[in-house]
């Protein structure tokens, strides 16, 4: 992972995403291989100052209040807690017990805790799970903001859309192994659904569609042109045909 990027770990449930992240956070020991976070082995005490975590299966004590939780986990470099609560819409709930918070407010508190100590690396594990579409987009804005402030973000998700919108690079996990790596566009182009357009060209040549996004191959047989590529290729090729005066069928 490179400094300052949003790095995605994508995969279906049970693919091994969270296990990998837990190894990076020092919560689990790895079976093999060498792991380093900011040049240090996971679990190194000094890393706790530098890493912020929002965990998928974590909770706070039911009776702890919002303000108490932020005070409890604040280190010497912590941001101003009042500002953090204000930024995350928690100010009006500062005296509420964790057990009385809604799912959305709990998630906000976990994000606030992850950012509390000005981390250099932030792990977000299924951060938008259980959020409504509006809240999800708000969280996306926050993740971008975290990146703009200079932190490296590791985003674990099973939503391709989320990874596509947010991640600079990502890896795709399946059964504990990386099956694809690259930018979202590269992965979609290489592994997205295969789409084919088969039509009779009206004067167009293969060169007319070479530059269309998502095109992988163009073949011409018996007066028909067959273009193969990703799902988004269909939209680009159809736009080119329409612009050229042809109505594709």
């Amino acid at each position, binding site marked *: 992972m490179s400094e300052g990027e949003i790095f995605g770990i994508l995969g279906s449930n049970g693919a091994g995403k969270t296990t990998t992240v837990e190894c990076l956070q020092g919560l*689990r*020991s790895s079976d093999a291989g060498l792991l380093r976070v900011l040049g240090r082995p996971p679990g190194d005490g000094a890393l706790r100052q530098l890493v912020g*975590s929002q*965990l998928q*299966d*974590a909770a706070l*004590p*039911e009776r702890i209040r919002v303000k108490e939780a932020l005070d*409890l986990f604040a280190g010497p470099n912590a941001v101003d807690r009042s500002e953090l609560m204000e930024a995350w819409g928690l100010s009006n709930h500062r005296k509420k017990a964790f057990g009385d918070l809604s799912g959305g407010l709990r998630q906000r508190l976990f994000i606030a*805790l992850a950012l509390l100590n000005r981390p250099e690396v932030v792990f977000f594990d299924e951060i938008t799970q259980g959020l409504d579409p509006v809240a999800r987009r708000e969280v996306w804005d926050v993740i971008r903001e975290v990146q703009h402030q200079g932190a490296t973000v590791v985003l674990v998700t099973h939503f391709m859309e989320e990874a596509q919108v947010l991640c600079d690079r990502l890896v795709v996990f399946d059964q504990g192994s990386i099956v694809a790596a690259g930018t979202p566009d590269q992965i979609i182009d290489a592994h997205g659904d295969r789409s084919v357009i088969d039509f009779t060209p009206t004067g167009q040549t293969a060169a007319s569609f070479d530059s269309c996004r998502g095109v992988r191959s163009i073949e011409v047989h018996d007066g028909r042109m067959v273009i193969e590529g990703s799902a988004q290729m269909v939209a680009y090729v159809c736009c080119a045909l329409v612009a050229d005066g042809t109505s594709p069928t």
Partner: protein
Amino acid sequence: MRLVQTELKLVMREPVVLTFVFAFPVITVLVLGNVFDADDTAFEGVVPAQWYVAAYIGVVIAAIGLIMLPVHIAGYRHQGVTRRFRVSLFPHWALPLAHVIIGMVVAVLGIAVLLIAGGVAYGLPAIEDVPTTIAGLLLGTLAIISVGVALGSALPNARSAQGLGLMLFLPFFLLSGGGPPPEAMGDGMQTISNWIPLTHVIRAVQEPWLDIGDPGNHFVVVIGILVAATAAWLWLAFRTES
């Protein structure tokens, strides 16, 4: 210190603490103190009510070590609170150590309430050997609380901790001094009583306080429990899932 303060507040918000640590021993000792005649000979020459007040210090400690702490800590593990702490700035040993400290603080409060209630109702006997009694109290409390932290760190959830805790608490409480006095027990029951750790904790406090025996052997057992339980919770605190 901040962790201890916060955890103490959270523990004191648990209804089970108020019931088992503060109310149960006081109510039971007040009832039992009135059951026996003051000159009953089964209490090693001590007034029964005063014998029970000394014994019920152990019951307060057992309520903390066998019920309060295991339920609290196992609940933390099951809910994912412990995981949250493991990625925080606190070192791995901080949370269990905080639980040992709050166990000690709650024990001091619970014992104070018991002694005030017992003292008002029956009068407190003079402490015959103050340093040994205090040493027995400190080591015994620390030992049972460490057992509680180790149990809570090992058990999967609050429900299992509550089940095991009650299963241990009832025989511990009945056979180690909170029920019939040793002289009223048959040989079999006395043998079982001698195998119960809480018996040695209570005797390590009772004997030097009331001058009814030499607590040396009980101290050896209590220190053994303390070392084993501390080693267990430390090991559990640093283990990592694979």
